[in-house]
């Protein structure tokens, strides 16, 4: 049964295990296993490499900064979030991204990625972007940075949650086969949201990398 809200399955002490945990862990394992099996077969491996190169090219074309270290992360996000969003249309499964806990975790990863890569490339110098143009704007810059992470989590959560909630309500009101067009719409939303999550991660991380890489203004 597809539930619009996370369902508690079991408890370990104070730790609540919801169906989100089970589905997302199972999905990760399934994706990794599928990739391992595909790597063993020459034809599947060649197909995957062509696909990866196409995705990598599209990522590199999007931004001007050098984002080579970010490419695997973005591709992983696309694959995982895309599969997680589409898991909602499989009978007896619910998409794990309709739980704020998972989207928040993904947003934290996206938040850390930009800073870790900027820190690796430029050292602590990249923190200077927060006191530009004046140190007075520091709180606003920090709030802006945090709010876009929150927005990243809430956007994915809101879209997937509204999709599953609307299908549940329509199923309750109208019954068999009526929610099918809405489920088709939620497939489209799921794919677009996975794409957008990756692109926004890329854009935010690239803005950190880019600003830090800007040459320092010569002092008069």
């Amino acid at each position: 049964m597809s539930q619009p809200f996370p369902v508690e399955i079991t408890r370990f002490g104070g730790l609540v295990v919801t169906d989100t945990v089970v589905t997302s862990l199972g999905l990760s394992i399934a994706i990794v296993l599928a990739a391992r099996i595909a790597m063993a077969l020459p034809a599947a491996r060649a197909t995957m490499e062509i696909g990866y190169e196409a995705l990598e090219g599209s990522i590199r074309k999007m931004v001007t900064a050098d984002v080579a270290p970010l490419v695997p992360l973005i591709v992983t996000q696309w694959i995982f979030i895309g599969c997680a969003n589409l898991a909602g249309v499989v009978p007896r499964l619910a998409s794990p991204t309709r739980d704020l806990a998972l989207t928040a975790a993904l947003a934290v990863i996206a938040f850390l990625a930009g800073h870790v890569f900027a820190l690796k490339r430029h050292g602590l110098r990249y923190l200077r972007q927060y006191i530009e143009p004046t140190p007075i704007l520091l709180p606003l810059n920090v709030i802006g940075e945090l709010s876009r992470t929150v927005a990243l989590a809430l956007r994915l959560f809101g879209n997937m949650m509204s999709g599953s909630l609307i299908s549940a309500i329509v199923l309750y009101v109208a019954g068999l086969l009526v929610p099918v067009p809405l489920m088709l719409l939620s497939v489209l939303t799921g794919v677009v949201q996975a794409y957008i999550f990756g692109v926004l991660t890329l854009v935010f991380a690239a803005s950190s990398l880019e600003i830090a890489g800007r040459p320092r203004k010569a002092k008069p």
Partner: protein
Amino acid sequence: MNPRDWLALASIITAGVTIAIGSIAPAIGEARALERALDAIARQPEASDKITRTLFVGLAMVESTAIYCLVIALVLLFANPLLP
């Protein structure tokens, strides 16, 4: 009606008003963005790839205001902290 009923009534009405008003502005904004993007694609069909990409990202950003309203409406309806 006891105070709890009033609170429930206020929550339900507020949730409806939130989502109603909160979807107007993003709808107008997205329509304007889409209009401009179509205009730009009509003028420069060769740049349609880049325009579409930027449009998608921009629409997602604009839509997040509507999503905030949706989340607040959902919290009021299903996870209201004030109602026991």
